[in-house]
């Protein structure tokens, strides 16, 4: 790895309401996971977080050790990408769920013990009564992710972050996990941030979408608007680079040329300009602000897709 300071994430800010599911999309390395981890102050060494990370009124970086501990899993819970490695192999699944509740004393020890089985039933683990005593290796991948979800929601957090929750799973179980996430967020009225690079998943699940590129939000808005009228060239390219079942062979797929920038040496101006097909001179020198382009939809671009007559042929040139 090259040395130097990498600004993985810079100036990210967004609002989520209870019961809302917000999708955070972007290529790998665009800072999605870092955003989530820094909210819990879990950025791995030698990473550093500077500035402020506000959750509501609280600055996560200013919290004492006890406060951040109380915050983790209680205010904000996280579900990780790989359920195969995210559960402790030497502890019983039921215990790992119980432990999450015990940590915050929201329940008495007795209560948390009694809540484990219902919790597992709630995430639809069959024969939960028998399986509490199982170890993770006796669970399938899908079951493990259910257990992770049970652990995450056991303290009824106000925000649940799911980091690529289905990427490591078989296609057949992905849908059921997503369904579970949606139902459980409704039941608990928790806000959910779904980190993914799967646009189809976002389309089916999320109320709003945040598109990240090089550690910045480049576009944000209601899912429907973003999919219908993407305004940032990156969002546009992202959608055009994916096949869609409903538009068979009508449009050609367009790939995004180049690779995401090295965050140790980010380009001047708009971070996307080296890969942008619609760039103008200003993009090379000045970084655009995140401006409102339609009610509720924000984009960080000087050009905006609505100002381009025929993006398809423009992009083909």
């Amino acid at each position, binding site marked *: 790895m090259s040395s130097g300071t990498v600004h993985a994430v810079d100036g990210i800010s967004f609002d989520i309401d209870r019961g809302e599911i917000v999708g955070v999309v972007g290529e790998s390395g665009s800072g999605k996971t870092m955003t989530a981890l820094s909210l819990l102050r879990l950025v791995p060494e030698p990473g550093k977080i500077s500035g402020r990370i506000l959750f509501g009124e609280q600055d996560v970086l200013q919290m004492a050790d006890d406060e951040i*501990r109380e915050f983790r*899993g209680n205010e904000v*819970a996280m579900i*990780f990408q790989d359920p195969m*490695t995210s*559960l*402790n192999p*030497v502890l019983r699944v039921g215990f790992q769920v119980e*432990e999450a509740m015990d940590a915050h004393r929201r329940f008495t020890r007795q209560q948390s013990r009694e809540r484990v089985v219902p919790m597992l039933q709630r995430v639809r683990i069959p024969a939960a009564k028998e399986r509490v005593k199982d170890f993770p*290796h006796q669970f399938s991948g899908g079951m493990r992710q259910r257990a992770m979800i049970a652990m995450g929601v056991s303290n009824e957090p106000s925000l649940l972050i799911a980091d690529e929750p289905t990427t490591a799973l078989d296609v057949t179980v992905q849908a059921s996990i997503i369904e579970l996430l949606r139902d459980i967020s409704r039941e608990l009225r928790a806000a959910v941030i779904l980190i993914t690079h799967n646009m189809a998943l976002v389309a089916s699940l999320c109320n709003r979408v945040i598109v990240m590129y090089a550690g910045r939000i480049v576009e944000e808005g209601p899912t429907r608007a973003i999919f219908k009228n993407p305004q940032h060239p990156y969002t546009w390219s992202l959608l055009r680079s994916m096949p869609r079942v409903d538009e068979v062979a009508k449009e050609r797929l367009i790939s995004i040329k180049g690779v995401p920038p090295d965050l140790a040496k980010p380009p001047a101006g708009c971070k996307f300009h080296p890969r942008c097909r619609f760039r103008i001179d200003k993009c090379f020198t000045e970084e655009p602000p995140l401006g409102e382009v339609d009610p509720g939809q924000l984009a960080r671009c000087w050009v905006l897709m609505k100002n381009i007559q025929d993006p398809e042929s423009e992009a083909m040139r």
Partner: protein
Amino acid sequence: MSRGTLIYAAQRLVLISVTAVVVSSLVFIGIHQLPGNALASERRLNPATEQALLHHYNLDLPWPQQYVLWIQGLLHGNLGESLVNMGTQITPLLLRETTVSVTLGLAAVCVTVFVGMTLGTIAAIRQNTWVDYAASTAAVVGYSVPSFVWAFLLILLTVAPFYNWTGGTFYEDIGWGKPEQIPVPALALGLPYAAIVARLTRASMLEVIRQDYVRTAWAKGLKARIVILRHALRNALIPVISILGPLITGIITGSVVIETLFGIPGLGKEFVTSILDRDYNIVIGVFTFYAALVGLANLAVDLIYPVLDPRIRY
């Protein structure tokens, strides 16, 4: 303990018995190839007495016949009679001494495991700080200093209180058996190996604290102590357990020296005495006991695995 584990343990016990018989047979045969008869040559005996003695110990028979008789005894748990102290039965003697050695050895293993894991864990969670460097340097120094040197240093460091407490440092004269006599020899025996355990624990911990499940534990909001001890250390210990076997053999080796040095009436001291006295019957007996002890210790270690790691089944 599951059925599979019991069957596994039973198989191992059979194997241990076979090993013990094989080892002691090899020693028996080896020793009977020595020139002259097994009665100590320093003693001048008149021919009639000597003949009577040889007959008493079956030494007048050809060695294959002696071997058969000895094996028959062994299968009945009878290791024969001391050549030097006529009338002393070896099996009860060695059993008595084994309890002494096992007590001391277990104390030493506790020292090793406790000191080693603590140092290793602290070094790992303070990686690349002065604490880590100090612990790592201490580890190399720790196992470069042999057990008997540790013994000398411990005695010198604790001279005054030590004397008042245990009444001396040579237990042959003052008697062995008080619990307060155990710490110093146990520390001397355990410290060199604690250094090895510390090194391994550190490396293993560094590996484990980067694992996803440890991140999950932090994300759940668990206390640091619980994350480190329950989630990280439990997993980090699994590879460390694998050296406990060789380590126990090492501690047994060390105990031969330490028991002799401190005059502790254990198997190790008995072995040295019997070698010096040319009391071959006891030498063979001690070999049998040690082979069984090493086997049992390794079996105990292997039975710890499934307790620590549920993925392992026998």
